[in-house]
């Protein structure tokens, strides 16, 4: 059996590798993992001009073959044919940023010296021209001895030429490497050669005004910069709510009408109850938050694709330094507002281990999108939609307070962690600041699509299964006359035990019940409450009541506030625990994370409940 030729895409970070990969493979991508490490393996298929298929794999960006992170290690191992679960590529597609040749050529020289058939994509030639930089691809070809193709990946230019060049490279023999490779290991010597080649290939360089510097004069201005940053953050969180209202309404209608269809089609009984209360009620309660989650991811993808994200890190560096971190930690933390899992994975670029572990430990305190369903339901039920003046609503203010509480909690936690369990070593802040770019709609769309699929898969698996299990535990054994379903069921009995510990912080039986399946994922708390109340309500007219109305009738205000405070801190997410275990290679840190966050959650919920009760709310 002949396998399809494999081509690996390699290059420095910010060279535009992913955009090139998207251009060549389109949306037909497979995201997996390399065995034993959490580094994502992104691959896709394309057809060469002669019809042969080709598998393309996008390797993590690297500065050199001397790895300084798990990501770079995978890149090195793949191109050396040493990576478990990956065959040696038949050819390499090396992506160089035309505006940054002196730097990217150093890694290019190392890669070419490996002797694998290589094609160079000289990317971002449009930005180079914009900056008045003219590069001669033929000269580069002569110096490097491999084909060079000009591309503008974000504008989808140069794809056919790349495929043409790849069809020549695939099947070509490996060249014997010249020399003993000593020069490739001497980074300073390599760098000098890279600069010499870049000079030789640069035919024209005018002092054209660089757009990036022009924008940075404003974006990094000591006064205007932080104001713009605050405005962007405000717009982001505002948009998450304002733009999602209509689509959430459509989803709710869709779910309600599906429930209606099931009720009409299936006679009353276990199956109908499972479908209506368990599947549609439970999973539906979570699915309606898809619009908000996508809007949040849209902003984060845009911030990254435009190059602004690193500017935000730059502006935040001093503040982060106060608590013993750096601007570097800011990027994974901002991503954690969408989801802590990609956030924790993004900490890999932090080289200092103490820094990294602190960032991982506080990432779950950023208000992730899974908390939104919980916050939105409780706020909607208990906080009146009144204005506190200047067009600011009380509901929005409370939500802002919950976000702020998470951030303050994270900063204080970092301060304590850096002085105790993650003490010592200080790496500081050194980062490449990429050029500003107009993001490609296609790349952003592909990113959003991937996120939407991950979310829906989660809803279809973890959330569906835990909702069905919970529905079963709630429905059996059937209540005897005079008993409520909640008291007699298995789930009810488990909750009664937990309730003993949770009663002092104001939690009732149903909350105790919801918290158990919510260990799988926070948003399950909402679906669990929905399922519990929907089963409990025998009366047909009452069953029509929304979860909001049910909660209003059954919870006191201090209980609702305590419940919110609990979710600011509680690490109720199996995926986060799992990714922390993988990223830290053991159970020590995830166990520590669970312990300190549950302790904080208990204290915060308790303090809120007691304070609210004392105030007579």
């Amino acid at each position, binding site marked *: 059996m002949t396998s399809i030729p494999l081509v690996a895409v390699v290059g420095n970070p910010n060279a535009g590798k992913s955009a090139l990969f998207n251009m060549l493979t389109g949306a037909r991508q497979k995201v997996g993992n390399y065995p034993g490490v959490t580094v994502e393996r992104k691959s896709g298929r394309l057809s060469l001009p002669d019809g042969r298929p080709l598998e393309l794999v996008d390797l993590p960006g690297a500065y050199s073959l001397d790895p300084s992170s798990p990501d770079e290690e995978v890149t090195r191992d793949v191109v050396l044919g040493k990576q478990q679960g990956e065959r040696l590529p038949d050819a390499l597609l090396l992506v160089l940023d035309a505006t940054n040749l002196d730097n990217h050529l150093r890694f290019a020289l190392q890669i070419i010296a490996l002797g694998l058939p290589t094609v160079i994509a000289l990317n971002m030639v449009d930005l180079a021209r914009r900056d008045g930089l003219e590069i001669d691809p033929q000269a580069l070809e002569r110096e490097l001895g491999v084909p060079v193709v000009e591309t503008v990946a974000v504008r989808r230019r140069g794809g056919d030429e790349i495929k043409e060049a790849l069809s020549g490279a695939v099947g070509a023999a490996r060249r014997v490497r010249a020399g003993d490779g000593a020069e490739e290991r001497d980074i*300073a010597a390599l760098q000098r050669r890279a600069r010499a080649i870049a000079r030789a290939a640069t035919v024209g360089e005018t002092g054209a005004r660089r757009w990036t*510097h022009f924008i940075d004069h404003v974006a990094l201005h000591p006064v205007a910069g932080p104001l713009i940053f605050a405005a962007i953050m405000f717009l982001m969180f505002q948009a998450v709510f304002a733009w999602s209202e209509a689509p959430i309404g459509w989803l709710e209608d869709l779910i309600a009408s599906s429930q209606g269809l099931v009720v009409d089609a299936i006679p009353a009984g276990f199956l109908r109850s499972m479908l209506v209360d368990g599947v549609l009620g439970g999973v539906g309660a979570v699915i309606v938050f898809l619009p908000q989650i996508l809007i949040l991811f849209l902003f984060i993808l845009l911030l990254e694709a435009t190059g602004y994200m690193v500017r935000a890190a730059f*502006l935040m*560096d001093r503040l982060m*330094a106060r608590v013993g971190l750096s601007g570097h930690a800011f990027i994974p933390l901002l991503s954690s507002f969408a989801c802590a899992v990609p956030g924790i994975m993004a900490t890999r670029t932090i080289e200092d281990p103490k820094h990294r572990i602190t960032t991982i430990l506080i990432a779950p305190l950023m208000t992730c999108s899974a908390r939104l369903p919980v916050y939105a339901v409780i706020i909607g039920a208990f906080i009146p939609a009144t204005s506190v003046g200047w067009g600011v609503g009380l509901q929005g203010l409370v939500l802002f307070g919950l976000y702020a509480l998470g951030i303050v909690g994270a900063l204080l936690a970092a301060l304590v962690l850096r002085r105790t369990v993650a003490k010592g070593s200080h790496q500081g802040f*050194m980062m490449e600041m990429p050029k500003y770019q107009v993001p490609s709609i296609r790349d952003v769309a592909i990113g959003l699509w991937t996120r939407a699929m991950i979310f829906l898969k989660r809803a279809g698996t973890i959330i569906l299964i835990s909702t069905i299990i919970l529905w079963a535990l709630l429905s059996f054994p059937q209540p005897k006359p005079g008993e409520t379903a909640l008291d007699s069921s298995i789930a009810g009995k488990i909750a009664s035990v937990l309730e003993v510990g949770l009663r002092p912080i104001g939690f009732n039986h149903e909350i105790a019940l919801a918290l158990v399946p919510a260990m799988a994922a926070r948003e399950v708390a909402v679906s669990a409450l929905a399922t519990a109340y929907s089963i409990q309500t025998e009366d047909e007219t009452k069953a029509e009541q929304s979860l909001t109305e049910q909660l209003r009738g059954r919870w006191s205000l201090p209980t609702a506030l305590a419940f919110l405070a609990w979710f600011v801190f509680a690490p109720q997410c199996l995926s986060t625990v799992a990714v922390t275990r993988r990223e830290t290679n053991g159970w020590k840190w995830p166990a520590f994370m669970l312990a300190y966050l549950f302790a904080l959650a208990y204290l915060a919920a308790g303090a809120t409940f007691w304070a609210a009760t004392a105030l007579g709310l």
Partner: protein
Amino acid sequence: MSLRLDQLPFRTPATVTGVEWTSLTPIEARRLRNLGLDEGVAIEALHGGPVGRDPLAVRIGRMMVAIRRSHAQAVMVEATAT
């Protein structure tokens, strides 16, 4: 006239005359080399952070790099005559 990078006025093109690699940890030194810092390259401090003008946004060759003032002290520069 030689200066430390953190003393170089903003938007003054300069050349790196020396780097005290030994005053940096090996990880820091490698990272700065990866970001293009080396003797003889063109350098220019462009922007400073909002608090104490720290960190610095520095152009090294053609690349923009963020670096804290404490690390910039290890870099000796000389303003390019214009």
